[in-house]
Each structure stands twice: as C-alpha cells, then as structure tokens.
C-alpha cells in the first residue's frame, strides 16, 4: 500500500475541513453565539494535522484501487474524529463518543442526534453540524477533488469509493472537472432552495440549516420539533426539495446539456417517483382516520414523511412512531430502499433494488424454462453478470452488517431496558443514514441513552453505510495492509 500517498491525500481533505471550520468560526463570531474559541481551536488543530499529512511526500502518485479505498475509509474516519472537536472542546458534549457520534452523523448525512435539547446548543455549533451534512452529502473527497488542483490521474478510485450506487461513472473525461460539475449543480440547487425558504419567511439561519439538512439529505434541524416547527406550505416545499436531492445528479447534468433523451431513457428516477407515489397513497389512506378524516392533511403528512425517509433525510413533521403498523412498516422498507444512485442519499439505492428484483424474477423464469437465456436489462442496456453478482453480494453484506450490529447494540439490554424495535431500527436508521427510527430513537427521541459501546457501533454503521460498506470493511481485512 502506498501509505505516504494515502496520508498525503487525507491531509488535503483535512485542510478542506479546517477551512469549513473557519467559516463556522466567522459565523459564530457574527452571531455572538459564544462558541467561537473552541471552533477556532478545532480549526487550528485540524489545520496542523492536515498540513502535517500534506508534507508527507509520496514516492510515486501511483494510486491502486485498494489505496483509493483506504484513502476514502481513512479520510472519513479522521474527518469524523476531527469534526467532533468543536462539540467536545466547547463542552457541549463532555463525552467524546457522543461528539464523534454527532460529527459522523453529520458527515454521513444521517442526522441522528445525541442532543436531547437541541435548541439550547449554541448557534455556531449548530451551523457546523449542518455544514458537515452539506459537505458529506456529495462527499468530502469529491469536494477536495473539485477544489484541489490535479490530484493525479488515478483518482477515479476515490470517486468510485465515495459516490453512491453500484457503478460510479464520470460525467466528463477529466475527474477534476466531473467533481466540479457535480458540486456546481449541488451548489446551485442549494442556493435556489435557500432563497425559496427565505422567500417563505424563514429567517436566514433557519433557512441555511434546513437547506444544508435537505441538500445533503441529512436531517439536522435547529428545532426540537424538526420541520414540524414551520407552516404547512414550507413543510411541503422542504419535502419537494428532499425529493429533488434524491435524484441522480447525472440527470441534472443531462438537463443542463438539454439531453432529454438520456433523461427519458433512465428508468431509475421514474421508479423512484413511482415508489414515492404509491407509498404516499398507502400511508395517507392508513393515517386518514388519525388525521381527523382530513384528506389533504393526511396526504401532506404522508408525502413529507415518505419523501424525507426515502431520501434518507430523516426530517419529521409528525411523530410517525405513533402511526398505524402498516405505515411504520412501509417507512422502514423505504429506509432500506433509499434513493437513486449518484445522489446525496443513503440506503440500498433504487437501481440495486431494481436489479435484485429483476434477478429474482429471472430465477423464477429459469425454473419454468430451464433452457431460456435471460439477461437483465436496465435502461435498454444489458447489465453485466459481474454487476448483478456484485449487487447481490452488496445486499447480503448490507443485511449482514445490520443484523450483526443489531446483536451488538442489543447487548445494551444488560444495563438498561431497550425494545426490539428500537434496537433494529436504530441500526437501520444509521446504516441507511436516515437518523430517526422507531420507538426510543423515533423522530421525537434521541440516541443519547445508548451505552458508549453501542454509540461506537452505530458510529461505525453510519460510516459503513455512507461509504457503501466495502471501503470501510476492507480496512478490517489483513490482506489490505500487506505490502
């Protein structure tokens, strides 16, 4: 492994993180929120480490696939640890595990929080927390690729490891340009959302926090009752924006190039919208009696929740933990499915679910007609068998991580009372980067009561889920570290 290069590249990302902290510092000063010194100190420490790593000059810039994976995994772990410094140094979270949990939850756009009273947290820290959502949504390494000049020609490995979906493709021949295009689209969409929220009468701080939360599909809010704090039209608007950020960004690039054919041929977003439509309908019917037989309110609540959950944002306008069983089960299913590949969202991704389903149907067809030749097609193109088996492997690994973590988290039951539902959904909500689950970790709950061990497991789950398992799991393989 080219360790020197791994550290060098990681250093670049830490420098970017330090710059992000500086922005939070300036904001904190401007707001007189009283947390500027800890943020500045954190920025300084991050800068020192980043600069130090950057000074390690690699012998070659030959980046192998596994080096790329290692860079991404290591970067995300370090970024979460350094990102925890502002929370820890300011004394808001005296427990370092809590601080790392919160930072990882930010960067992985999970949005799960250990704050019980979020409204008492200083605004500088709240801004920092939401800012991590925004940077983590598109990927901190892709951000670094977009900002830093020439990081070598093999950086495709970095993007592959960091972006979401079964096969990451470049939009244009050069990696750096691809990263810049993605971030430009991301930035423009975010700015639009910010101004729309301002126009709806939100103050600028609320607007920025919720823009970051929805754009990164994270879900941190600065209010205890989340998006429920705002008026009904604002809620729906935020729901629509969440849905927009759950679409593959390549679609927006095609839109800019006026390549409508490519958009029309792509089946993923259609399926994604179809799932949203069906789920909204079912849930609306299900909660209709609870909403005082008010159909428009039922649809509004159902749509917002579906959009928020399928995009793995995790905002809430109602305590969906109190909804009837059918709605809760649908929501947990949506948590697992997630949004489109190449978006800022987590979960299994709609494409993978589509491939898995088609593969299942093919196996059924094969039993009926053993001699038939069946290919799986997506958007009119044959899916390589390698990709299909890769997706199946991914699915198993995903389930494996969830089940193993559920067992580890339920060890908590030795010291405190914890329900089956909250154990399992806490894990699903972190691996799929959603945030709230059911029961204790429901939309009005928090992860504060878990033991440090469980928090560590859940923190790892968030990272494993955000990086789509293998980059981080690879770090545990001894083969990866052999020369």
């Amino acid at each position, binding site marked *: 492994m080219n360790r020197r290069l791994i550290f060098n590249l990681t250093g670049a990302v830490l420098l970017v993180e330090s710059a992000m902290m500086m922005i939070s510092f300036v904001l904190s000063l401007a707001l007189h929120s009283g947390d500027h010194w800890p943020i500045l100190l954190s920025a300084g420490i991050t800068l020192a480490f980043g600069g130090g790593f950057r000074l390690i000059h690699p012998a070659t810039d030959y980046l192998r*696939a596994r080096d790329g994976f290692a860079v991404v995994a290591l970067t995300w772990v370090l970024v979460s640890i350094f990102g925890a410094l502002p929370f820890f140094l300011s004394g808001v979270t005296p427990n370092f595990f809590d601080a790392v949990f919160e930072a990882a939850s930010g960067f992985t756009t999970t949005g799960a929080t250990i704050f019980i009273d979020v409204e008492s947290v200083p605004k500088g820290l709240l801004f920092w927390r939401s800012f991590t959502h925004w940077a983590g949504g598109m990927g901190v390494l892709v951000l670094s690729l977009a900002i830093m000049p020439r990081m070598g*020609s*093999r*950086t*495709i*490995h970095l993007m592959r490891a960091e972006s979401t979906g079964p096969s990451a493709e*470049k939009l*244009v*021949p*050069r*990696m750096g*340009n691809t990263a810049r295009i993605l971030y430009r689209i991301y930035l423009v969409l975010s700015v639009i959302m910010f101004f729309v929220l301002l126009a709806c009468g939100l103050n600028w701080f609320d607007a920025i926090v919720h823009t970051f939360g929805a754009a990164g599909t994270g879900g941190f809010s600065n209010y205890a009752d989340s998006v429920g704090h705002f008026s009904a039209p604002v809620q729906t608007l935020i729901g629509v924006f969440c849905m927009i950020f759950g679409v593959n960004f390549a679609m927006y690039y095609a839109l800019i190039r006026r390549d409508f054919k490519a958009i029309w041929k792509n089946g993923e977003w259609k399926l994604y919208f179809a799932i949203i439509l069906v789920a909204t309908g079912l849930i609306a019917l299900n909660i209709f009696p609870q909403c005082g037989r008010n159909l428009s309110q039922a649809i509004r609540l159902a749509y917002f929740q579906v959009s928020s959950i399928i995009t793995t944002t995790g905002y809430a306008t109602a305590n969906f933990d109190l909804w009837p069983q059918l709605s809760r089960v649908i929501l947990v299913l949506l948590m697992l499915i997630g949004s489109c590949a190449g978006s800022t969202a987590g979960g299994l991704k709609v494409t993978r679910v589509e491939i898995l389903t088609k593969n299942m149907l093919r196996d059924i067809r094969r039993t009926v007609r053993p001699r038939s030749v069946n290919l799986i097609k997506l958007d009119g193109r044959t899916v*390589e068998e390698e990709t299909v088996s890769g997706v199946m492997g991914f699915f198993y690994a995903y389930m494996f991580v969830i089940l193993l973590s559920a067992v580890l988290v339920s060890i908590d039951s030795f010291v405190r009372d914890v329900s089956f539902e909250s154990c399992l959904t806490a894990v699903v909500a972190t691996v799929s980067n959603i945030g709230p689950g059911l029961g204790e970790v429901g939309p009005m709950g928090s992860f504060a009561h878990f033991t440090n061990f469980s928090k560590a497991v859940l923190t790892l789950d968030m990272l494993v889920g955000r990086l789509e398992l293998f980059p981080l799991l690879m770090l545990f393989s001894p083969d990866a570290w052999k020369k």
Partner: protein
Amino acid sequence: MNIIIVGNGKVGYTLAEYLSRQNHDVTIVDKDKNALTRATETLDVLCVRGNGGNVRSLIEAGAEKADVIIAVTANDELNMVCCLAAKQLGTRYSIARIRDPEYTESLTLLQEKLDIDQVINPERAAAQEISRLLRFPFAMNIESFAHGRVEMVEFLVTDQDDITGEPLSRLHARFPHVQFVAVQRHGEAVIPDGSFVIQMGDRLYVSGEHVAVTRFFKRMAKDTQPIRSAMLIGGGHISYYLAKQLVLLGLRIKLVEINREKCRHLSETLEDVIMICGDGTDREVLTDENMEENDALICLTDRDEENIVTGLYGVRMGVRKVVVKVNRLNTPEVLDELGLDNIVSPKISTANAILRSVRALSHSSSSRIQKVYGMLGGKAEAYEFTALAGSGFLNVPLARLKIKKGVLVCVLVRGRRVIIPFGGDHIEAGDTVILAGKAGSIEDLDDAFTGVEEST
C-alpha cells in the same frame, strides 16, 4: 481539446496516456470490456463501450462536439467508417490508421471522399524512418525541419570524438554552423547552455543545414560514407515500402523471406530487388548471402525476439548499420546496452506521429506551430514556428530577449538562409523559428519569449 480515440490497443492506449496527461479531454471507444476497464482505472479518461462505427456510440462519446477523432482499431475499414461517421456528426478533424497497401494506392481518392483529414500508415511511416536512418550510418535518429532545410541528428558521443571536455561556448566558435540542441545524460534530458561540457556516453542532438551537419561529422571523422547496400529480413508491409524507397535511392537490396508464396508476390511487385526465399534467422542463409558484406542489416520479421537475435548477430559480424523492429518492448534501454541502438517500433512511431499532429492542431489557432518533434524518447521536444508580424519579440537581438528558462532558440530559417543564432541575431517577421525545450515546456511563441530587457 475534446479527443475521441476509437480502439484501445497499444497505439490507442499510448495516445490516451499522453493526451490526457497534456490536459486534453479524452474519450475512448472500444468493444472490449477488459481493455476499457484497464483504461478507466489507470488513466483520467472517459470510456464508452461500443462499436466505433456505430453512430450511437459515437454520439455517446461526444462526437458532435469533438475536436479530433483518432481511429486506430485493427480494422482499416472500420477506421474509415468511424472517421466518416464522426465527421458527419460534427467532429472537426479526423485521423485514421490505414495500413493495407491495397488501399494506399487509392488513398487520395478515399481520403477525399471519406473526408479523412489525415491518414497514418504505420508501416510506411516506419519505412520512412528507417530510410532516414540509413542516410547517416552512425546516427540514432534523424529528423528534418523547415521543409527539409534543417536537419537534426542524434548520435552517441564516443571517446574518439574531440568535442568532449570543452564548454559549448568554445565549441560554438569551432563549429559555428551547427547547433547543439539537446543532450541525454544518465537518462536525464538536458537543454545545454554555454557552460555545458559534453562527455563521452552522452546522446547528443545536433542541428543545422544538411551540408553543415555533414561537414561537422566529417571533421569529427565519423563514418559519413553513404549506405550502398542493405539486407532486409522478413517480407512484411514495412519491407515492401522500404525496399521500394531504397531502390529509388539507388541502393542494392536483398530481401530474405521464408514464405515462398510471399516471395513470389513481392518479386512480382518489387523491381530490382534480389528476393531470397529462406529463413532469415538461419546463420547459413545469412552467410551464403554474404550478410557481412552489406552496409546495412534491417530485421523486420513479425517476431521481436528473432529480430533482436539476428540484429545482435549482425552487430557482432561488423555490419555498419543494424536496424531492428521491436513492437512489444517497453524497455528500449536494455537493447541500447546490448549495442542495438537503432530500434524502430511502428506502433510507437504511429502514436508519435499522431501526437505531433494533435499538438500542432491544438496550437494552430494562436501561434502557427507547424511541427513538434519528440527528442530523447519524448523527454525533450523541438518546435517549429513561423514568426508573425506584430509580435513583441521581432527585431530585438536575442541577447536582450527574455527567454523562458530551459528553452533554446536553435535555428532560424530566413528565406533560403539557415542561421545558427547568436546573441546578436534577431528574429524577423516570416522567419521559421526552431526552438527546443523539455517536453511540454512551450505552448506558443509568446510563451517562450516572456519580454524584452531594457537596454542599459
């Protein structure tokens, strides 16, 4: 520039590697998945899987807005179709590799009708390279500039050459009609300045007029006797083109080919060539045909190993000039050490030829770069420009021009005169200027000349 490369073989990959490093946006189209996987993982390029002749694949690769399409698949016909289709879609410039001699004869017609801007024939390019090499038997490389006015010759400095141990400024006084352009020492390329001292074992590039260069080598007591006879081993396309050219130059040619059918075919098409049917690697055949009596031995069979072994035998028997074709070797230094310093690789030559025209294309808008020539295995480059009226560097003595570090003004061609410039000379509008520098160091003339020093 946006460049599409169809065919990800050796040539395609080499091209993609160089072009993407020079900050061009490269898209590769190929049918083979494995070849594409390798390219995606090692190069900063975009890969499209599909047939290059298929309009849909070409559109996906961006042919509607591409600047150049380079078709280098193994199939001539496919290459032509690619270029035709891409041109129709809106690509600005097309380059096709066409190697079958059957097409070469009707090439002008095809090129015009199919709208192909440039045809590269690797075998003919290699044959031309070899025939140039034969002009100076001791030279490792020869290139001509300014429509053949200026020649640039690479040779190995030996202990008998009396140009060692003296700084270049004094050598210039002795040889005012040639320029010392570039040196390779211990694998590093150097653009020498006045204080540079040449050592034994350096690979040196000298340039100047043909007569001046010949006189320079005569004074160095180099072997300037022209090659009068050559033995060609292997009867492929290169041998065909080469024999045809050499016969025109008046050389006596013997061609050894093992396949009787091929021999018949070649003797039908080639005049004044002694065809011998036999195994070119067989020592007896070589002795029977007096291999060591020939001035040159040129090994052009399909097998690299046979070429190398036969070539080494030729070197040992004291043949003055041995040229060897090697296609698949990535380490030419090894052969250098064995004494085989004239190696021709059609694929690398093709890639170099295409790279040169792409570079010229990307410059042509601003500064009229006419030719880029890679020296020392691509580590250094020579550039040919025409100085346009109105440029800031005209009519100023070179000594007062601020010239980018590591760039050398080698030769000026003014009308029919070839000038080796000194500090007192100046560039006039319309001059052809030849510059040398490390690879990629010069973008255009204004980049090389950064300003004028105030006269004190």
